[in-house]
């Protein structure tokens, strides 16, 4: 009797521990990778061929987050940028993979000890680790993608560049496409976890839709999870059922479910679309007889990494600065694949892009800014 209770208790505890571990993984959009960390030392596939004479000892290296360098998302994109930079300027580039969150600090430290000219931390998960490492190695240059790191007093660190993106501007453009191509005048947005970052996607999108289609109805829902495809599917089911015909998702793995639902409905002859995020998600919308991906909001981490490396090489390391890569730097934009986008929409996108670049439109990022924007329409 007592034993059985203990067994049950143990199993609940075991399950709880595992679930807790899984829960942590939810935050990082990538997958958990128990493998891959073992090849840290033999990844110099590019760096070895590079000679260092011409540009002295300049080197640019990066630490991936747990998604790994082949995550088809921002780690991979960052590495593409670094490789391109390495080839163009004939300098040494390299990466270290992190197989676990506890690898971040040692990996960053290793780059600092190797006298890396600029070390990139890819992803906001490394926020705390890079703060420590950067403070300890004040003579070294660092950069972090997707977040702004400050010290205890709220000041940025002088040897750390903060790379962010104007996701709201890119989202505005896909909003324009959605607003023009919706037939039911009803579009929707599914966010991952509600946060200032994802709010930028939401508000930019809403502003874009309303700019071209003031009467459109916009449904918003946050899944509060980046990794729950079934949740994404069900939210999409409800939204499409309520009459929306375009859904923009900024929800990582949860977005998989949105594509599933859209494909299912498209097969039954419904005219529904998904707008992808971060990268060109055209392949994901493919089914036997068509494609449900309208367009995607792409975030060019490679461009950002390339440009920051170049600045550093030229002696203009933007330490302590908060860099925002927007439309003008090609840091964000709509996907290359435009099979499902009508010419009229493409023209409108170009038009609005120019207006944003000229400063005629100030795309809202927060809820307050969006309210102002809406009132001004």
């Amino acid at each position, binding site marked *: 009797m007592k034993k059985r209770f203990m067994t049950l208790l143990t199993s609940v505890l075991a399950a709880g521990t595992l679930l807790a571990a*899984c829960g942590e993984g939810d935050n990082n959009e990538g997958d958990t990778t128990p493998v891959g960390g073992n090849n840290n030392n033999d990844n110099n596939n590019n760096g070895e061929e590079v000679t260092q004479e011409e540009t002295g000892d300049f080197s640019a290296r990066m630490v991936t987050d747990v998604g790994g360098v082949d995550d088809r998302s921002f780690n991979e994109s960052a590495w593409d940028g670094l490789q391109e930079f390495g080839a163009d300027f004939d300098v040494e580039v390299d990466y270290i993979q992190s197989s676990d969150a506890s690898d971040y600090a040692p990996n960053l430290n290793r780059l600092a000890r190797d006298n890396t000219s600029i070390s990139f931390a890819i992803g906001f998960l490394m926020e705390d680790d890079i703060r420590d490492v950067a403070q300890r190695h004040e003579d070294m240059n660092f950069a972090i993608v997707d977040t702004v790191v400050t010290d205890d007093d709220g000041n940025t660190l002088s040897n750390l560049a903060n790379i962010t993106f104007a996701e709201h501007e890119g989202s505005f453009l896909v909003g324009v496409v959605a607003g023009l191509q919706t037939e039911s005048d009803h579009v929707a947005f599914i966010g991952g976890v509600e946060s200032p970052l994802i709010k930028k996607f939401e508000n930019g999108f809403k502003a874009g839709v309303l700019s071209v289609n003031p009467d459109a109805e916009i449904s918003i829902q946050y899944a509060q999870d980046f990794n729950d495809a079934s949740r994404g599917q069900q939210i999409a089911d*409800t939204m499409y059922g*309520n009459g929306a015909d375009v859904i923009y998702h900024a929800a990582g793995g949860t977005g998989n*479910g949105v594509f599933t639902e859209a494909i299912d409905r498209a*097969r039954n002859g419904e005219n529904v679309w998904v707008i992808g995020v971060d990268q060109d998600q055209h392949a994901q919308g493919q089914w036997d007889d068509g494609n449900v991906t309208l367009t995607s909001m792409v975030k060019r981490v490679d461009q950002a990494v390339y440009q920051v490396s170049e600045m550093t090489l030229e002696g203009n390391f933007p330490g302590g600065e908060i860099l925002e890569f927007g439309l003008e730097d090609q840091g964000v934009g709509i996907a290359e694949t435009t099979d499902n986008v009508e010419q009229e929409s493409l023209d409108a996108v170009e038009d609005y892009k120019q207006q944003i670049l000229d400063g005629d439109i100030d795309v809202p990022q927060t809820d307050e800014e969006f309210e102002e924007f809406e009132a001004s329409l």
Partner: protein
Amino acid sequence: MDILSILYTIVPAALIAATPLLFTALGGLFSERAGIVNIGLEGLMVIGAFSGILATLWFETLGMGAASPWLALLVAMVVGAVFSLFHAVASITLRADQIVSGVALNFLAVGLSVFLVREIFERGQTDYISARIFRINVPFLSDIPVLGPMFFSRIYVTTYIAFILAVIVWYVVFKTPFGLRLRSVGEHPMAADTMGIKVNRMRYIAVMLSGAFGGIGGAVFAITTAGNFAGNTIVGQGFMALAALIFGKWHPFGVMGAALFFGLAQALSISAQQIPALAQIPQVYMLILPYVLTILALAGFVGKAEGPKAIGKPYEKGSR
């Protein structure tokens, strides 16, 4: 939205959400009824989802078309059964601690599948399958007023298979000699042994059945909902299935009810935001709803969940 159209959204969603849980929990039922705790259900789902997606992609390239996902379900079933042998050998033949062995199964499944995905696809996730199992409307039945749109429209065939399977499992476990032997092995293995039942063989069969069903459960989720496989495709569904098994008191119909209950709570919490009458409630209350309901149900309304008597104990011939 009136009350009916709300139900038309929520009920199919609940049935679909319950499907993978039901498959997997029914598998766990075999194993635990035979006296082997199966914490490894999560790992079995992972390996099922992995092999299901991989097999679908493979059959697609062989030109099997729409039959690919169905054949892949069979592959996932076999792979799940084989994979569960780790648990069976460790906990039955070698008499290891069943909890430890089950947990090991979970880690092994995620590690192995992600490793293989990286080897095969050279990145962290597989390609997307294009031949999927799609939602269907059941002919005639979907035309029934009220009930049709709720139970027979826009549902996966796999959902019906799961519910039919629950009935079959009930029949097998409670109405056949095989079921009687299975239960006796889980309740009092020594008595079963003296009656000439091969205890360890029964337990092997039971664990492999749980592997087969768990594999199908994972594959059904991956093929119908996720569309590809990555290390985070199955996160916690196996433990939900385990909870449904205990919640359902190790009885097929109880398990069915529990899975439906979980599905309904989840469906309600997700769809509530889009329902005008419920949209006013802060989202956080809707998000915790499934868990609150589960705790309430477990604490107050179900009564004591009493498992098989010999669960968790390896059987040693001649011991007392």
